[in-house]
C-alpha cells in the first residue's frame, strides 16, 4: 500500500510541475528547438527602447550644448 501511495504521489507531482516547467522552457525555446515568437518580440522591444534612449540622449546633449 505504501508503494502505491508513493507511486501516486510521484505521478501527482509530475503532473502538477511538468506543464509549468515545460511551459517556461517553451516560452524561450520552441518545440523544434528554435527561439519562440515571444522571446524574439521581447528582444525587439528591448532593442527599440534602447534605441530610443540612445537617440534621445544624443539629442539632449545637442540641445544642452546649443
Amino acid at each position, binding site marked *: 500500500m505504501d508503494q502505491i501511495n508513493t507511486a501516486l504521489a510521484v505521478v501527482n507531482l509530475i503532473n502538477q510541475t511538468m506543464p509549468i516547467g515545460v511551459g517556461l522552457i517553451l516560452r524561450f525555446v520552441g*518545440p523544434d528547438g528554435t527561439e519562440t515568437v515571444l522571446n524574439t518580440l521581447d528582444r525587439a522591444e528591448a532593442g527599440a527602447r534602447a534605441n530610443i534612449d540612445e537617440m534621445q540622449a544624443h539629442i539632449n546633449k545637442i540641445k544642452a550644448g546649443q
Partner: protein
Amino acid sequence: METVRKYVLIRLLVGMFVLTAVAAKCEDKDLKKVADGLDDTVAALSAAQKVVITANTPATPGGPKLLSDDATIKIGGALIRVNEAVIKGVEATREIAKLDEPSRQQIIKILDPIVKAVGDILASPDIAGIPNEGTRTGIRIAIEAVRTNLTAVQAAIALSK
C-alpha cells in the same frame, strides 16, 4: 488495484494533454516571421542611429561635424518615432496567437504608417540637404535598410494568406 491503475493512467493522460496544448499554443511559423522582421528592423534602426550620431560627432574636439545639429535633431526625432511605432507593432503581435485575417489586418494597420514614416525621412530635405555626399549616402543606405526590413515583415504577412 485495478482502480489505482486506471487513476494513474488517467492522470498521466491529462498531463500529456496539457503538455501538448502548451506546445501547440507557443508557435506559429508566420507569426515568427513577423517577429523576426520586427527584430531585424530594430537592429537596422540601431545601425542607422549610429551612422547619424557618428556623423554629428566631430572627429576631433571642436572640429567640423559632417551632419549639422539641426538635421541630427530632425532625423533623430523621426527615428525615435519609428522605434515607438515598432514597439506598438511588437505589443500588437504579442497579443496574437495565430496570424489569421483579423490579426493580419491589425498588424498591417500598424506597419503601414511606419513604412510611410521611413519613406518620409528618406524623402525629407533634411537628408537631401546634407552637404557631404558620403554622409548623405551613408545615412540614406542605413535608413533604406530599415525600410527593407519593414517590407520583409509586410511580405511575410501577405504570403501567410
